[in-house]
């Protein structure tokens, strides 16, 4: 064992000792002697394990950082886990989940660009915008945006993207709302889910595509799944936040008047959290739109594919017009959902603490 190994061993032991001390310090209640004892025990265990590993030839401390075989074969484990999933469940998943949903999405997609004439669609969205905001200017802007998309001859891919986003957000809501509610109600669940959400949001979105494609193949369903996973965290977080922001005295009042847990949730917490939930939906839609181009790499049709073509064929114009349509779609969806969120809190805005 090299000198460097010994030094690092000592450093590790000291670090473990300090960490243990800090942990016990924070709890403040253990008698000091027991604190020190436990901390020392923890440090010792770590040190002994490291020495045993070193002696056993695993070269944990003195190993070469740039070696061919990783000391921790995590990549291998992940490969094997996904392989196992694919061989065991791949066919069943494709047949029972993926295929019916792909069929439904296809139907929805065709309905959007074939079943409805484009002016009808534009008018429907304009009315939607007016209903949400009670402003003619927004309605006019929405109608204008749709006319522009049509004039750019990108109506079909836009509708395909709209359908992908709608279905993804539906999946996100079905999974995200219950998770967000559970997180808002239980501190323990929150502690568990918080790092998972951090992980989901920081992990580059490309990474999701690999196992999803292996399981479900190229195409729309994988796109929906990857988009839904990517878009879920803001909805979960904002639902949790909305529940927790409900005034403490209001919650106390509900309890004091004899509301059961479910009555509190449905009659007080959720209605008051709704503006925040709506903000979560808005954020999730924006996240989903950001995923459009990435999803096109696994064969999802729509505006993302147009951008991708533009890149492959070196046609900046194609890329720009498709990108412009994504931007227009984003603004339209953003303004409409935001306006709905605002309308939900007009009643009690002035009274909110």
């Amino acid at each position, binding site marked *: 064992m090299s000198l460097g190994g010994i030094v690092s061993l000592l450093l590790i032991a000291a670090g473990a000792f300090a960490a243990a001390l800090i942990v016990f310090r924070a*709890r*403040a*209640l253990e008698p000091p002697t027991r604190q020190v004892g436990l901390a020392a025990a923890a440090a010792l265990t770590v040190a002994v394990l490291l020495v045993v590993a070193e002696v056993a030839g695993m070269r944990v401390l003195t190993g070469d950082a740039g070696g061919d075989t990783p000391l921790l074969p995590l990549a291998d484990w992940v490969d094997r886990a996904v392989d196992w999933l694919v061989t065991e469940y791949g066919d069943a998943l494709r047949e029972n989940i993926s295929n019916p949903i792909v069929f439904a999405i296809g139907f929805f997609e065709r309905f959007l660009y074939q079943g409805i004439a484009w002016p009808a669609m534009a008018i429907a969205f304009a009315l939607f915008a007016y209903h949400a905001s009670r402003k003619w200017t927004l309605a006019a802007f929405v109608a204008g945006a749709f006319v522009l998309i049509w004039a750019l001859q990108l109506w079909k891919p836009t509708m395909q993207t709209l359908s992908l986003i709608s279905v993804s957000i539906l999946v996100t809501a079905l999974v995200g709302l219950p998770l967000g509610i559970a997180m808002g109600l239980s501190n323990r669940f929150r502690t568990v889910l918080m790092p998972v959400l951090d992980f989901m949001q920081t992990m580059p979105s490309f990474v999701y595509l690999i196992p999803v494609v292996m399981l479900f193949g190229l195409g729309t369903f994988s796109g929906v799944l990857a988009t839904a996973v990517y878009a879920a965290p803001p909805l979960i977080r904002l639902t949790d936040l909305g529940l927790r922001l409900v*005034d403490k*005295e*209001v919650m*106390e*009042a*509900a*309890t*004091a*008047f*004899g*509301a*059961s847990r479910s*009555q509190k949730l449905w*009659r*007080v917490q959720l*209605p*008051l959290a709704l503006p925040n939930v709506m903000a979560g939906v808005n954020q999730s839609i924006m996240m989903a739109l950001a995923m459009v181009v990435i999803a096109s790499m696994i064969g999802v049709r729509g505006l993302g594919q147009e951008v991708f073509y533009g890149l492959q064929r070196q046609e900046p114009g194609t890329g720009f017009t498709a990108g412009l349509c994504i931007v227009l779609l984003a603004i339209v969806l953003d303004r409409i959902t935001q306006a709905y969120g605002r309308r939900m809190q007009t*009643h*009690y*805005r*002035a*009274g*909110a*603490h």
Partner: protein
Amino acid sequence: MATDTPPKIELKSVTKIFGEHPQRVLPMVAAGASKEAVLEETGHTVGLRDVTLSIPAGQTFVVMGLSGSGKSTLIRHLNRLIDPTAGQVLVDGEDVMALDEKALIAFRRSRMSMVFQRFGLFPHRTVLENISFGLDLQVSGRAGREACRQKAREWITTVGLDGYEDAYPSALSGGMQQRVGLARALAMDADILLMDEAFSALDPLIRRDMQDQLIELQSRLRKTIVFITHDLDEALRLGDRIAILKDGEIVQVGSGEEILTAPATRYVADFVEDVNRSRVLTAGTVQLDCAVVTASEAPADALARAGNGELQVTYVVDANGKLLGAVTGSTMRRAIRENTASMESLIEPVQTATADMVLEEVLPLTLQGDLPVAVVDGQGRVQGMLSRRSIIAALAETAGVAKSDQ
């Protein structure tokens, strides 16, 4: 106030410690370690320490203390918004701590309701929906809800909010919001009403209005009200009995007058120092002994018994003890010189007050004549007298003369 009826609410040695491991800190608190020492050593906060209280039915019981004294913690133990670390809470002799989740919900729905400092109204519900909230929880279906709304409408009228049924709380002023809070609590029809600093967030004038309204309602409803406040004037105005809380401990329990005239500790004495005593002290407490003669006695006999008080005033009563008026020493001496046989021609009229009148009401009477005001009972019999000087002496007496200083 020892009565034969059992107390409505009883707290027995209730201790509350906030923190991660309250049970471990309990022995230290029980041993009498100070709040600061406990916080310093363990990071735990002592909310209440060994609080024992019994609250009689049908009265307004005020818990008074400054912020941080634990009064809001105390009231939240009564409906178990907070669970005690040790001790018992009994309502009608029933141990509230023994209730399971379901029984606790039923208990909260039927036995006590609560009014909050910042109103605690549901911002997404209209005034009517707010008031019927507690009732709505107990029914299902449209018909049931309609019945609740009907009941809620009656309370809207009672608190004077007609016409605001469909307004949202944010559209109302503070005073109106708290009327909604009060109506919401009263609509539950529970016989215990918990009021946590219910009027503290209101402007002084509106606060006074609300106090008047509460006093008026209470004279009709006779509920058991537990009222939390940091305002001594409010406590004295509303409370049949008052408990003073300091650092989570009860320092004194008594009627307003008891607390004012016999503060138990220096802390209470400092507290009551600035109080407007004329609104609390009654004629009965401040009155002086006085001489009384019957009208048939001779002036010389009367003078002999007149004592040597201010002006040597003597009250004259008839054969039944009913007050006729008063004579002064100088009048009697003149009568003796002039050999007047009977007192009757000497009597001058005097103002009268009853023993339960507060000094604020008696003071104007003393200005209507030079003779001291006679304190009489329901039959007109003389109990004592109140001169201007004795009233001013009582008002000027500072709380610094606490009888049992620490």
